[in-house]
């Protein structure tokens, strides 16, 4: 192998240097974002506390934040908050993963097989806009009044955004990388795993990111309708006992859980899609 000529005048910047610059500026940007977000949340908290302290709202309708936080602290000390959070998280994530495990392969298969597309496309078109919670009585009849029907309810509601995004992503992949792989000797099956899925991954992950909050909402609503433990169930119980501090404690817990779960998925997206231009603003 001869080496390239010495007369080469192209300017070369080491990629590491470029990368270093970019990450540090992106880091600063992200820190700035986080700062603004924290400030907004802090402002709302102060507003909440002030409004209630000044007796502008009846404390039964909106208890002071400090009382809510105090209740939260007691629940943390007694451990009940962890039981609720864990139960809700378990139901939401189980449903979400079951949905992903079915919807991603189905979306891929639909993009490959016309027969499957003809069969499932109308079903999905009809099912997607339907209020999924309306199926809850059916699941209760078919399964139980405990976790199974809750998790199936969540999976059912997560299924549609994931299958739709996967199908759209895998059926519209750029032909050029596919042709490259074929030209380098990849077989059809290998092209699916090695080219189509990575190319479609941004869209599949977007589908997951849409499904996850849907799953969280469905979990809490289902818990509220069916009672028992979990954040939704505990809130409904608090409501029945006219315990407004308890209700608002539930709201704070939901906000916290939602924030953590959604940010985690965003983080995973950034990790998986380092190659994508979106990952370096």
């Amino acid at each position, binding site marked *: *192998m001869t080496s390239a000529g010495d*007369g080469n005048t192209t300017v070369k910047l080491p*990629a590491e240097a470029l990368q270093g610059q970019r990450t540090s500026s992106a880091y600063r940007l992200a820190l700035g974002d986080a700062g603004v977000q924290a400030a907004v949340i802090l402002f709302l908290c102060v507003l909440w506390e002030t409004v209630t302290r000044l007796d502008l709202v009846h404390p039964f309708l909106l208890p002071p934040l400090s009382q809510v936080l105090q209740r939260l602290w007691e629940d943390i000390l007694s451990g009940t908050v962890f039981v609720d959070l864990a139960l809700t998280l378990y139901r939401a994530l189980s449903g979400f993963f079951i949905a992903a495990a079915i919807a991603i392969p189905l979306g891929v298969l639909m993009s490959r097989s016309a027969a499957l597309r003809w069969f499932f496309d109308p079903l999905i078109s009809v099912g997607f806009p339907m209020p999924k919670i309306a199926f809850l009585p059916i699941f209760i009849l078919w399964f139980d009044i405990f976790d199974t029907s809750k998790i199936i309810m969540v999976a059912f509601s997560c299924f549609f955004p994931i299958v739709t995004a996967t199908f759209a992503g895998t059926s519209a992949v750029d032909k*050029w990388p596919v042709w490259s792989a074929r030209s*380098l000797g990849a077989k059809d099956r290998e092209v699916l795993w090695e080219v189509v899925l*990575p190319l479609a991954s941004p869209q599949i992950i977007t589908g997951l990111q849409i499904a996850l909050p849907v799953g969280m909402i469905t979990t809490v609503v289902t818990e509220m309708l069916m009672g028992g433990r979990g954040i939704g169930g505990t809130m409904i119980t608090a409501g029945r006992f006219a315990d407004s501090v308890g209700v608002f404690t539930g709201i704070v817990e939901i906000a916290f859980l939602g924030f953590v779960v959604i940010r985690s998925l965003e983080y995973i997206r950034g990790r998986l899609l*380092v190659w994508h231009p979106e990952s370096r603003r």
Partner: protein
Amino acid sequence: MTMAAIQDRSHADSGTGIVIDGVSHSYGSRHGSGVLALDNINLDIRENEFHALLGPSGCGKSTLLYLIGGFIPIQQGTIATRKGKVTAPGPERSIVFQNFALFPWKTVLQNIVYGLKKQGIGAAEAESRAREFINLVQLKGFENAYPSQLSGGMQQRAAIARTLAVDPEILLMDEPFGALDAQTRRVMQEELRAIWQRSRKTVVFVTHDVHEAVFLADRISIMSARPGRIQHVIDVNLPQDRGEEILERPEFLELSERIWRLVREQAISASRGEH
């Protein structure tokens, strides 16, 4: 060209040439009302030949390469290599696409290693070979960069390295140096010529640059404006060893001038045809 001659070639088992026989291609409609891109192409590319394709934009050069590569189905006529009729892509006919077509989720190094692994080469060996080709195309320092972090010319060089690394018998190149600056372009041309002389493969090289075609090729086909036909096939009678000095030789300049006039004719008739 007689049928008998074509038959002979396609059955010769030592040849890695390409026999293109009566190939036409139209886009858009299957019922014949679409755009006719190629019209009855007959071309016999010899084994180990460096063959350049020149022609006005839109005359079907890329289409012809895609047909040889087996990426789009042949509608009419046949294309045959030593392995028989072309029906699908294969690693013995590797291509550098006009738009690079790198894998965006793989780094430069991973892009090149991918092709080598597909040839059954082990990971360590594949990586060291990939690094050699990265050096060859002057991308040292960018092994771990993703395509979206590279300039157009750098992506093009990565694509060239990926295809050269798998060492195909037939190398199809679609304006592979189109995005490069004049300096880099010259270096890459000399490298390609040297690689071809060393490894003796059959190259089909599409370009717009007459000097590039004359510098690199043994024979040059000039295509007509759409629908593409082979208008002239011209032998380049220049020494096998070609360095920079050849660019000043009278034979080189004369031949370039002649070919340039033929290409211009086609381009002019193309612009007339469009009004």
